[in-house]
């Protein structure tokens, strides 16, 4: 499998976009331990589901503005250079 740097960057951008567009409330209904409810918050280990929810939420919050910028750059580059 040949990796060019550009294809890796594109794949990473698509993955981060996918994480950022996830809708929290739907996941709260599907999963038992949501990150907001604080289940397991006072125990030592929060459990994998709340860890995952925390991770998704923090990635979405941190990367929102940079994602806007990087996505616009990617769109312009793809329009210009195909």
């Amino acid at each position, binding site marked *: *499998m*040949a*990796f*060019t*740097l550009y294809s*890796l960057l594109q794949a990473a951008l698509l993955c981060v976009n996918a994480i950022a567009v996830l809708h929290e409330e739907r996941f709260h209904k599907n999963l038992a331990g949501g990150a907001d409810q604080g289940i397991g918050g006072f125990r*030592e*280990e*929060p*459990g*994998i589901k709340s*860890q*995952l929810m925390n*991770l998704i939420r923090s990635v979405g919050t941190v990367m929102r503005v940079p994602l806007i910028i990087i996505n616009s750059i990617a769109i312009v580059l793809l329009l210009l250079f195909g």
Partner: protein
Amino acid sequence: MAYHSGYGAHGSKHRARAAPDPPPLFDDTSGAYSSQPGGYPAPGADVAFSVNHLLGDPVANVAMAYGSSIASHGKDMVHKELRRFVSVNKLKYFFAVDTAYVAKKLGLLVFPYRHQNWEVQSSRDVPLPPRQDLNAPDLYIPTMAFITYVLLAGMALGIQKRFSPEVLGLCASTALAWVVMEVLALLLGVYLATVRSDLSTFHLLAYSGYKYVGMILSVLTGLLFGSDGYYVALAWTSSSLMYFIVRSLRTAALAPDNMGGPAPRQRLQLYLTLGAAAFQPLIIYWLTFHLVR
């Protein structure tokens, strides 16, 4: 020609003589080295040429000083930026190796079954550097093994007459991309399973880099003994590497305070270790099978 006569004029100024026109350079160099300083025009031209070329021209002097100041400024800036991202002291810990450690560690990677004590020793809560502790991970072996793997891949492809310089870069970047992805996956797994340990990114990088030793051995055996030798070496190095990873990660990740945790979390950590170990033979096979046909 104006340039030429300008240099000749500078040379004549340095020599403090009033020669009207400089001798042509191409004619004089053949006789310039053998002639004595007594003859005026020929060594004058030669010395003028060399002096002008090195130190005589004030513009060249200024340019050289400016360039060296720019270079040192750039070096300082690079050092400052690097120190912000990568803690060099932590990195130095991983490269504090010596020959005996490297030899023993390589032997351990190939035959880990007789090693009894897998704990990483630490003195006063500071982990001992690899020079003093065989179980400590290091980054020297993975780096050297990676470079050796790239060179060996080039050699293997050259033996099969499939070599071209782009393939070397492709091989190196593919292997590097796989390492980065594996370290990221391990970091994600360590975060999700809330493993409380002092496994930093560099530790994971070191443990992922040990598979290059197995790759090198497999490719070498494949080159020497053909396809059957390759598969035998692949099986042997895969099993020993899996054993090594499982033992090392279990003693590093499962610190004493983790042992009292509930069963699902311990199961998660076990799955993480087993997953990391099972991934190694796959990636060894994937990165080397095209080299041994």
